[in-house]
Every structure is written in C-alpha cells, then in structure tokens.
C-alpha cells in the first residue's frame, strides 16, 4: 500500500456502474443500513447513541491523526501511540491532583487549570513521542519494515508499565466540567457538558492541524517527505527533522486527547492506551491510513459504532465488534474510505 500515492488525473477516472460501486463499498452500505434499521426501531435511543458516539469519536479522531501522520510519512504503525495518549491523561490528572482543584473552585481557577493541564499534557506527550522516535525508530530506518514495528511493541510495553508504576489502580479525575450535567436538548437528546467540551477542545485543534499541514512551509516539507523521502532530501528538506516534527504533532494531539479523555470518562488507568490505540488505529485505517480528514471521519464513525454496539450487543462484545471491523477493513478494503486520495486530500 502506497501511503502517499499521487492522485490519478481526472481524465483517467471512468464512471463505474452503480452495481460495482455498491459491491466495492458493501461494508459501508451494511454499516449505514444497520444504523437506519436501529433508527427506525428506536429513534431516540439511536440519536442518543450517535451523540455519545460522536463526542467519544472526537477523542479517537485525535489519536487516529497521530497514527495517520506517522504512517503517512514513514509507513510505520507507531504502536506506542496509545501509551503516549495514556501518559497525556496521567500528566493532566496529576497536575489537577497536585493543584487540588475541585469542581467547587472559582470558574477562572477551573478554566485556568484545565488550560494548563491541556498544555502540559500536550507538551509531555509530544516530547515523549519525539523521544520514542529517536530511541526506537530512527536507528532502524534502513532495517526491514517489521523491525521498527517490533521495537514499537517493546516501547508500548515499557510505557504501559511506567503507567502501571505511576498509578497501579484506576484513578478518578476531578470532575471539573460537571460532565454528566445537561446543557440543552435537541430532539429529546440531552447534550451533556462532556459532549460540548470534547467538541470545543477538538475542533480548534483539528482546524489548526489541517492548516499547519496544508499551508505552512513545515507542512509542505512533511507532505514532500511523505511522497518521497529521497527526493525531499535532494530538494534540501531536512528529512530527519521533518519526521521528528511529525511525531511532535502526533504527540500534541494524543496529549490533548488524553486530557479530554480524563475529563470525559472521569477514570484513567494504565492500560487505557492499548485499547484506545487499537480503536484509533481502526479509525485511521477506516479513513484510509495517511489521510488526515479520513482519520477524523473514521474516528467519529468508530465512536458511533461503539456506542450502538454498547446498546444493542452489550459492552462485553464491543471490543470484539470493533476488532472485527478492523479485520474486515484491512482485509477487504485496505485503502479505507478515502484511501485513493493523497493524505492531505
């Protein structure tokens, strides 16, 4: 799979018969059909699921972007990315615990501590991610492709156990945003504080990232490196630095996701990163790995699938459902939803 294929020219694109389009996208058609059926059966519950799924999905989207950025540029599944996200959660919660902020504090104090928590989590995660790249991936840049994947797994286990030592038991985050309280209702669906919060933090970050990759010199360097590292080097781009920058960006987003997760879910634990990482990776593959917008859309879709599965099959089956979808996509539709576009699509 080419991570950054050049888009084919419009002239080469021929119109496919409708039947083939359906067959090509049978997976999406089935998912959409399931959603519609559930909606007809129980509209209110389904809308509620979709809402929960979308706000949960913003977290997956942020993590998925980290996978997709890194895969786009060095074709490596950064297996330790989930753990970077976990460390982000831990850092922000530790900060709040040290400061001793509670929901009863003044609004300004809460807002300030949340902002500092966000910034610290983002910084910690991004520095960590860059360090991981230096230690575990850079020495293996010319090795067979599976070698860095194995070091990535090693790194993931190391970090998970660092998390285990840091917080052996699941810990709760102070409920700074009053996450369960309703803001307002739309069509009878209660929009809670946590939903609004997830979107308020995520959307500016996503816009900022798209702007950075699409419109700055550094973003241009990243895209060039993704297309052809050797040619980029010949054009005077510092490839090593560009790769570090990519890990930095991925880490920033993972840290933000970690902070949102802590407030959104209220509990954090050392192994949250493993599951979250796999779910987010599923999202990245769903959107077509290497494709930024695809990762966001994939994250939202996975969030909705999860909450619908929670309601209809029970929480015990949800991981199995998500992983089955991961397998189905990888085997039958490895290019994902938007895979044929370039990653900046």
């Amino acid at each position, binding site marked *: *799979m080419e991570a950054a294929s050049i888009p084919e020219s419009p002239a080469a694109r021929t119109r496919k018969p409708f039947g083939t389009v359906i067959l090509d996208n049978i997976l999406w058609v089935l998912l959409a059909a399931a959603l519609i059926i559930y909606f007809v059966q129980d509209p209110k519950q389904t809308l509620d699921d979709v809402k929960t799924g979308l706000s949960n999905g913003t977290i997956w989207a942020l993590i998925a972007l980290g996978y997709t950025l890194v895969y786009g540029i060095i*074709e*490596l*599944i950064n297996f330790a990315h989930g753990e970077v996200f976990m460390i982000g959660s831990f850092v922000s919660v530790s900060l709040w615990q040290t400061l001793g902020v509670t929901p009863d504090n003044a609004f300004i104090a809460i807002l300030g501590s949340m902002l500092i928590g966000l910034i610290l989590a983002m910084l910690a995660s991004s520095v960590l991610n860059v360090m991981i790249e230096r*230690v*575990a991936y850079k*020495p*293996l840049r*010319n*090795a*067979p*492709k*599976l*070698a*860095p*994947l*194995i*070091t990535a*797994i*090693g*790194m*993931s*286990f*190391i970090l*998970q*156990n*660092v998390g*285990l*030592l840091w917080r*052996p038991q699941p810990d709760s985050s102070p409920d700074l945003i009053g996450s369960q309280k309703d803001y307002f209702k739309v069509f009878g669906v209660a929009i809670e504080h946590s939903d609004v919060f997830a979107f308020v933090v995520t959307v500016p970050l996503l816009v900022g990232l798209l702007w950075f990759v699409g419109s700055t010199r550094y973003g241009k360097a990243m895209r060039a490196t993704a297309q052809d590292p050797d040619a980029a080097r010949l054009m005077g781009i510092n490839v090593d630095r560009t790769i570090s920058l990519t890990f930095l960006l991925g880490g920033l987003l993972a840290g933000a996701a970690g902070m949102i997760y802590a407030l959104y879910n209220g509990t954090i634990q050392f192994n949250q990163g*493993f599951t979250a990482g*796999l779910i987010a*990776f599923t999202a990245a593959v769903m959107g077509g790995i290497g494709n930024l917008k695809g990762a966001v859309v994939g994250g939202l879709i996975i969030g909705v699938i999860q909450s619908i599965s929670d309601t209809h099959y029970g929480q*015990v*089956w949800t*991981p*199995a459902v998500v*992983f*089955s979808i*991961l*397998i189905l996509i*990888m*085997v039958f539709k*490895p290019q994902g939803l938007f895979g044929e576009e370039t990653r900046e699509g």
Partner: protein
Amino acid sequence: MSTAVATVRSNATSLRRLLPDWAWAVVFLALAILYPYILDVLIASPDDLLDASISTLGYIIMALGLNIVVGFAGLLDLGYVAFYAIGAFVIGWLGSQQFPDVNGGKGIHILTPAKSAFGSDLPGIHINFFFVIFIAAAFTAIWGVILGAPTLRLRGDYLAIVTLAFGEIVPRIFENSTSGIFGIGHTDFSNGRQGITPIDKINFPWSDTAFKYPLELKPVYYVGLAMVLLVIFFNRRLRDSRMGRAWIAVREDEVAAAAMGVNLVRTKLWAYALGAALGGFAGAFLATYTNTVNVDQFEFGFSVFILSMVIIGGMGNIWGVILGAIALSMMNRYGLKQLNGVPEKFGLDFDVTSINFGIFGFFLLVTMVLRPEGILPSRRRKLELHEAEIEGDVIAREEMSQLYDVRHEQ
C-alpha cells in the same frame, strides 16, 4: 571490545568442535532426561524449579511454533495467544466436566478412568490426554488456516495488526460464550470469567491411574519433554524440507519466490497451520498442567512474551529459540525477583515482578536495535537483517555469496 567478542566466539567454536554434532545432541538429551534427578541431588526442595521447568517446556513448544510463522516464513504474528486459547479450550471441552449433560449425565470416557477418586460417576467428556493433544493440534491448525486465509494478501505491518486483532477477539468470544456461541443455543462453552476447572489429570491410555501432579512432578516433566523432543524433530525436518526452503524464499523476497514457482498461498497457509498447531499442542498441555482454562491467561502480553522468546533467542534458529524460551521463562519466574533490591537503591519502592512485561518490552527493544538477529542467530537471517549495512561491504558480500552455496543453515 570486538576482539573480546571474537575471542569468546572462537572459544565457543572450538568448544563446539570438541565433539561431533551427534555427540552434543546425545549430551544435551542425557542432561534433559536426567535433569529432575540432577535437581534432586543439587537442591533440597527441587519441586518449585521443576514446576517452572514444566511450564518452560510448554513455552518452548509455543516459541518453536511461533518461530515457524515469524522465523521461517517471516510473517509477524502478534495474536499467537489465540492458538494457546483454542488449544486450551479443546482440552477444557474434551477433558473436564464442562458438558455435564452429555450422554444422559453419565459422560463419555475414552481410555480415562470412568470413576472419580471417590468412586462416583464423572459426567462430561473425558478423552485421554494423549489423544486430546493431537485433536487440539489439528483443531488449532484448522483455525490457523481460517485466520490465515483472509490475510494472505496482506503483508508486513497490516498482517501483524490483523493477527493482533484475532488474538484479542478469540478470548473475548470464549469469555462471552457462556450461553451458546453468539447467542445460538444455550450450552455453556467457557464458564465465563471463572474458567473451566478442574481439567483431567494425564493418564497413559493403558493405565487407569492418573498422574499425581502437583505432588509428583517427574512424570509430567517427561511427558512435556517427550512433546518437546517430538516438536524439535518435527521442526528440524520441516526447516530442511521443500516447504521449509519455500518459507525462507518467501521471507526473503515474496515476488522472486512466486516467480520461481513457489505457491505463495499454500506456503503461507502451511506456515500458519503448523505454527498454530504447535500453539494448540502446547496450550492443551499447559491447561492440563495448570488445571484450569481461564480467559484471563489469554492476553496480548502473552503473545509478546512468546514473541520475545523467538526474537531474543534468534529468529529462525531452532536452538536459539529454545534458549530464548528457557531464558525468558526462567527469568520471569526467578530472575526478576533477584532484581527487587534495585529500585530501592534509587529510592523507589515497587515490585519488579509486577512490571515483567515492561522488562520484556525493554529487552525486545534493545535486541531489535542492537542485535536484531538475537542471541544465537540464524546465519541467513542475520545477513537479511543487516542487508542495508553490508551493501558495499566487500567482505560481507563474499560471505553472502559463500552462503548461497551452503544448502543448510549452520
């Protein structure tokens, strides 16, 4: 530094040349057979170490199985624990009281004692251990093919993730199949989180007396050892067979192998099937020995534990993998306890054994960065892993061209 390494290496080679290869084999075999008695002589209470050794035998079989997939065929499998789970559940189904209603509550007994130690009836299916291990191997081999078939067109990292997902799904399915599988039927297949226990003790087909482990460990040790020897023999023959050479060809260059007439589908599926079969083989043994089949055992960490054995020992080299399995398994049991004083010196307070997987992750990382070919490398694999560095290096190239004349490894 490098001269020191060279001295050690030449010493090792001269030591090895001291005896012909078959004589070394006899020496190691004799040591393995006498091992429990040697322990009796050397240690006052050898049971704990012997217990660890029996688990190690199971891990050796699994590591050798994973070595077929990862080391020989070069397909990274991160979900090996799925086959452990399937093998363990096969013996859970065929060697316990999990299905009490079978045969009108009287149970099915094939070459196993029909009465319990207290003389009461034993409901459920009870098939002799020595049949069940082969049934488990065959059943997991089928699952290896089922899981392998859709992934054939994937390569590298995508394949790894798909196998990882399988490894996560299989235990979840078992865990949730307490009332039929996928809600079909009402049979309890797994007993949920409690797990299936007890599992039948091993007994010989010709005898009605079951082994008395955990009181008497030697007989189980010999059963395990016999299984390991069978697997080693099987692996050696496989490596040098037509199939084994096809695996190496596919590992080195899939396209070139296909162009030379290697049937990729068949080759890869056989690798999956045989690797999985050994996982099931060992899984059934370990489940009997530990007397329980519990989904909590089947987590991703275990896959990585076995993968670390293969990689640290030396991918593709049977003896390296065995060494890796023994080293990591014993380290997990004893070595980490020795390190418990270390954190205190740095003013920290934690139990080193609780972060065992983190330590294995660290080993994995260090091995892969510094010595990707492992402790006892397969010569051929080593050259592949260092291809980028030795391009243009004349000496290495000569070594490589010599190697192409050597038919067998080592």
